[in-house]
């Protein structure tokens, strides 16, 4: 049995079918031609994907096959962005008159769809906290067709009991979809726990170099086919072959990158938690994480995104953010460079807390710790400003 990391590097790549090239070519061709009338007719007859105008592409297909295997799914569909993946998935399974259950703490990328777009077309959406299964069961209706969740969640990294939710849904024939962006397929595989569809609404970790946008959904052959036919192809938000190639390139280092993110982040979370400027650390790998049992059950590892509640006021947050040298200020998540995101006005977090989100990058762990310590000391005391260039 080959290790998943070895498989990830080599599966679905056939150099000897691609002119012996060790790296799959970028086939940036909008359509594919036949050599003869007979070949054209033969392909049409067997509904060949390259022939009949479906937006499949051999370069994208390699990526889709690899992602499907990574998530222990049968099939995958890639999209031009995260919101495209969420919308393409949900819209394939709902119609006017249906009811959808959405967890309150899902990524803002999903908000326009669930808050505005679906209600406009007669799909009712209920938002629940979802931390207790009873709440979910209570919110279900006769016409509920889909439950949408994200675990761990994007700002406070709270987790859902995937097996329990999948159990409730399965008994009533309801489809479940989860955004698994934080954990990546290396650290959590929701399909193994009975969830129907896994979405990656950001491919930052998968591609890893802060230079592309994309999204993906993975699930059974039948469900992904439905997504292709009723969601993706209608909206046409396909991933370009060039982007797919960049993402394939990123997957080459997924395992070594995730290992480093985890190593650095576990150390940093511990350090932050012990600092007097810090009220609380929100991170499934933190020693005082509130849902330890769920983390043990579902996560094989911890990625590098966490939130920190600072003591004090917005002035302390400002001082902290401005004093950081290695962390760039941005919405970044999962890239090679560390970023800090002030979460002040975000609706997903505890509004009374002074929250910043950190995405730990590939820089040297000690350098990052020194940078954070210096900024925390400055936030706390207002001193040490002379150390800032």
């Amino acid at each position, binding site marked *: 049995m080959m290790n998943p990391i*070895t498989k990830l*590097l080599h599966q679905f790549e056939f150099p000897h079918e691609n002119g012996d090239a060790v790296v799959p070519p970028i086939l940036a061709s909008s359509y594919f031609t036949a050599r003869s009338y007979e070949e054209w007719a033969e392909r049409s007859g067997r509904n060949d994907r390259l022939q009949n105008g479906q937006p499949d592409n051999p370069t994208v297909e390699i990526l889709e096959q690899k992602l499907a295997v990574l998530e222990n799914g049968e099939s995958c569909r890639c999209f031009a962005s995260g919101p495209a993946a969420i919308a393409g998935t949900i819209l394939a399974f709902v119609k006017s008159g249906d009811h959808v259950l959405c967890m309150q703490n899902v990524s803002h990328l999903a908000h326009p769809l669930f808050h505005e777009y679906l209600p406009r077309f007669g799909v009712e959406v209920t938002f629940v906290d979802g931390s207790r299964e009873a709440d979910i069961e209570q919110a279900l209706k006769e016409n509920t067709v889909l439950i949408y969740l994200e675990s761990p969640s994007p700002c406070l990294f709270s987790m859902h009991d995937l097996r329990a939710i999948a159990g409730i849904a399965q008994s009533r024939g309801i489809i479940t979809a989860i955004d698994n962006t934080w954990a990546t397929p290396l650290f959590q595989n929701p399909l193994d726990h009975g969830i129907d569809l896994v979405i990656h609404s950001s491919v930052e970790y998968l591609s890893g170099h802060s230079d592309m946008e994309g999204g993906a959904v993975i699930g059974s052959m039948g469900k992904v086919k439905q997504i292709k036919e009723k969601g993706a192809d209608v909206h046409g938000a396909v991933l370009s072959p060039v982007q797919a190639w960049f993402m394939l390139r990123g997957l080459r280092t997924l395992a*070594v990158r995730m290992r480093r993110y985890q190593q650095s982040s576990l150390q940093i979370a511990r350090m932050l938690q012990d600092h007097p400027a810090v009220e609380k650390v929100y991170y499934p790998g933190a020693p005082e994480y509130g849902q330890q049992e769920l983390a043990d059950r579902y996560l094989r590892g911890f990625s590098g995104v966490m939130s920190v509640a600072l003591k004090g006021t917005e002035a302390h947050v400002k001082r902290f953010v401005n004093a950081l040298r290695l962390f*760039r200020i941005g919405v970044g998540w999962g*890239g090679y460079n560390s970023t800090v995101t002030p979460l002040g006005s975000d609706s997903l977090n505890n509004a009374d807390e002074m929250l910043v989100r950190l995405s730990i990058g590939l820089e040297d762990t000690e350098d990052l710790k020194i940078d954070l310590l210096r900024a925390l000391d400055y936030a706390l005391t207002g001193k040490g400003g002379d150390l800032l260039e």
Partner: protein
Amino acid sequence: MLLDERFEEPLHGSAAPALFQNSLFVKPSFDAMKHDRYNPKSYFYSRGNNPTVNLLESKLAQLENGEDAKCFGSGMAAISAAIMSVLAAGDHVVCSNSAYQPTRDILGKYLKRFGVEATFLDAVDESGWRAAIRPNTRLFLLESPSSFLFEIQDLRAITSLAIEKGIVTIMDNTWATPVFFNPLDIGIDLVAHSLSKYISGHSDVVGGVVIGSADRLKKIKHDEAALFGGRMSPFEALLVLRGLRTLEIRMEQHQQSTLQLARFLEDQPKVRKVIHPGLESHPQHSLASSLFKGYSGLFSFILNTDLAGTKAFVDSLRIFQIGVSWGGFESLALPVAILEEPIPYVLDGQEVDVADTLVRVSVGLEDAEDLCEDMLQALNRI
């Protein structure tokens, strides 16, 4: 520090550097055009300066503790530019006879036409190099470890000798990478790398770089780079920059898996000898560990078989692919026999030709256990 962003002034604050895929730069006025025409730092035409390529050059110079760097369209364009920048007709060069073949061809064949003499040496120690010096010796070309047999030159002693005699030193540091060795720190004048290997790391770039003092690089930029024009394209530079992001963690993994595989092979009866400078069994292990901070993923071993057995072995490999080059995410095996060149090696006190049974491997980022298992099943097919 692989990720230092001091050289980046991102457009619009973008997290990733911009790809400037343009050939020329336009100027707002006659005076600006005239001023930039003779300014070596200005953006005028992308064969000279291009912001994407320049960013890569700054990072590579910093990685090697050099003052400046120039990127080229291939490793050979880089090393040949470095060599040409030092030599003139009547000069003499000393180089190891196990250096990269095309490098030896430049020195021994091409430059011979222009009146340059070359001596190719067996020796890895200082005394051998000292004996080869002539009054007109101008350049030592260093490459360590050697291509197939991983002999380690005594770089510190040879460099001191060169400094004493006023001889310029150029070293090809592709094997160790800047993560594991920095030649400029021990007094070597110019470092060349093939960027196609570990530094880009994804087997999708061909490129090279020369790094050294500002003075030496100024000449290379002005003469060899500008006149021969073997420049690196901005797109390749972007891919190399992307590769640099993971260079350190890739090298850690390459090193760890390679040592595990090399030790595993040492225990196999169908393997006669494993040649890896990181192994205690390597005759120059202590020299290697005094020079290099770590070991990359390229090494050789000699099979306990004949040519037919070597064929059966490489054809049975499932994860290791058969190919040249190295330093990528993918594991490769190169049966040296395909080169049809004798490879003399001392086995059990006797010099023999090991070309038929010598296999060079580049260990990729696959799971190390899987790689050992692949080797084992292929060894069993001999």
